[in-house]
């Protein structure tokens, strides 16, 4: 039996690898500031150009006078920033693996689930920081934050960022080249975002598309995000056909499954 100080020492010893891998993710991102800029600038440009362009001519089913397309598109853009940052944070795992750095971590006495957890927390922190920057623009779209909605929004964003980073890790741990990663990103990750209700609601779309959107886990993530954003705002966002409970439940489940998937993938790697 270990006495209390020994137990504390062991806990610290177990935490150290997680904090050090997490810290490296943050410091490296900070030292390559152009990455910070590109992850936030591109979605912002999309939002301003597409949002303004479509506001005049395009009115999704259920739109009210108070809520134009720019406002509808806003939560989707925040999620896109989370997606881009998570992906950028994980794409470097591909390079790290090709070089010796990840091998050095793999031969250390650290279980793979802790390595993946640390990497996922690193990506989550970075995505969350970028997402919070974007939240500053929320009042422009009529959103009013109270303490409840603000902290709930942060929580949902953290869950989303954690799932998306793990989804990125799940791919990155299998890839030998960053080109392959980009291909998967264009073929899989961007469509997941497009069909999550970020760009257009599922009301009024052909039934096959509505079904695709229904089985897309990010649809529920985005719904949970909209719910939390508009918690303290009188005018509700449209596209709220998914209930708060269901969207949170599926978002939580998505979080766990992506993390388990990333851990299993990393555990199977021998280089």
């Amino acid at each position, binding site marked *: 039996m270990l006495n209390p100080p020994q137990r504390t020492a062991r806990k610290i010893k177990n935490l*150290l690898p997680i904090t050090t*891998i997490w810290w490296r993710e943050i410091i*490296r991102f900070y030292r*390559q500031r152009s990455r910070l800029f590109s992850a936030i600038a591109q979605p912002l440009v999309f939002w301003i150009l597409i949002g303004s362009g479509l506001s005049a001519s395009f009115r999704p089913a259920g739109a009210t006078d108070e809520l134009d397309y720019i406002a509808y598109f806003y939560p989707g853009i925040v999620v896109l920033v989370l997606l881009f940052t998570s992906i950028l944070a994980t794409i470097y795992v591909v390079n790290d693996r090709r070089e010796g*750095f990840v*091998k050095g971590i793999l031969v250390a006495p650290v279980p793979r689930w802790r390595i993946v957890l640390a990497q996922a927390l690193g990506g989550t922190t970075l995505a969350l920081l970028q997402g919070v920057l974007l939240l500053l623009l929320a009042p422009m779209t009529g959103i009013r934050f109270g303490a409840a909605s603000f902290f709930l929004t942060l929580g949902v964003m953290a869950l989303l960022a954690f799932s998306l980073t793990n989804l990125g890790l799940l791919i990155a741990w299998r890839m030998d080249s960053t080109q392959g990663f980009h291909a998967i990103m264009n073929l899989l990750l961007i469509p997941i975002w497009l069909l999550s209700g970020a760009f257009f609601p599922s009301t009024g779309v052909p039934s096959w598309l509505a079904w695709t959107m229904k089985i897309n886990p990010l649809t529920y993530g985005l719904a949970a995000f909209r719910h939390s954003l508009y918690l303290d705002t009188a005018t509700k966002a449209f596209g709220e056909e998914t209930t708060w409970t269901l969207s949170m439940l599926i978002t939580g489940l998505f979080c766990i499954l992506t993390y388990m998937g990333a851990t299993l993938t990393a555990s199977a790697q021998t280089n």
Partner: protein
Amino acid sequence: MVDTEVLHSITTKSREPTADSQIQVKNLSHAYQQRQALDNISFDVSCGEIFGLLGPNGSGKTTLFRILSTLMPVTAGTVHIFGRDLATEVKAIRNLLGVVFQHPGLDAKLTVIENLRHHGHLYGLAGKTLRHRISELLERFGVSDRAAERVEVLSGGLQRRVEIAKALLHSPRVLLLDEPTSGLDVAARRQLSDYLGMLARTENILVLMTTHLLDDAEACNRVGILDEGKLVALGEPDELKTQVGGDVIIIESVDSGTLGPAINEKFGVSTVLTDAQLRIECERGHEFVRDVVAAFPEEIQSVRFGKPTLEDVFVKLTGNLFT
């Protein structure tokens, strides 16, 4: 053609595993689908020695390195490191190993000290103990004055030294290095070899390295030669070279195919044809060179004469050139 008699005499001459053998590899095999990468390999290594695994590309040394470094599981045979079974006690073994991979294992965007701190944390080192150990190693490897610089600005030789310092940070009992001299110039290679020698002597650490460079292998205390997944020779470099015997003469000719048998017949020697070159081992090589050139002045283009090297051992055992 493999000279089975010599092979037998060399492999049986190798040491039997003893109580002080800290790495014991027994009947280790590994296959990738159809291809047999390692075929029934056995050897042992003790503390204080530098053991070299020499082999051309595709000989299986990378697979062996991956297994020893715990990246790949043992599928057939056994490996014991300090009495612990690699198949069942991976975590305990990982604490005993310091591993230097062929590809750079440092984060170029981090400083030297940040890289070392990161590594120390992975092994549960922190605080004063870690700081003390880092400064001690930086001092010993002569990189103290570069500690605060980013790794990307260091030369290849310095980076390799930092990597070795990193691998030694948690005081491992075994240092594994995969092609440690690749990408280094001659001076840096010599310096690295000196450092490894110093480590083996002063720290009583076991150093095991893979290499495809004959010069690197010559500097090891003992060498295992791998070819097509098999361990074809095991012993001290000098001991292996005496198995070749006498001198080695290499003759180049426009028509080596017919010159070989002609030389065999006239001088009663045995020539081996490898890659259009004729290799002959014989005593009193200087006299043989004089006689053979006099006998075949037209056919012979060039003659090289020398004492046997590890390459000659390889050629003798496998019948192939070491490439």
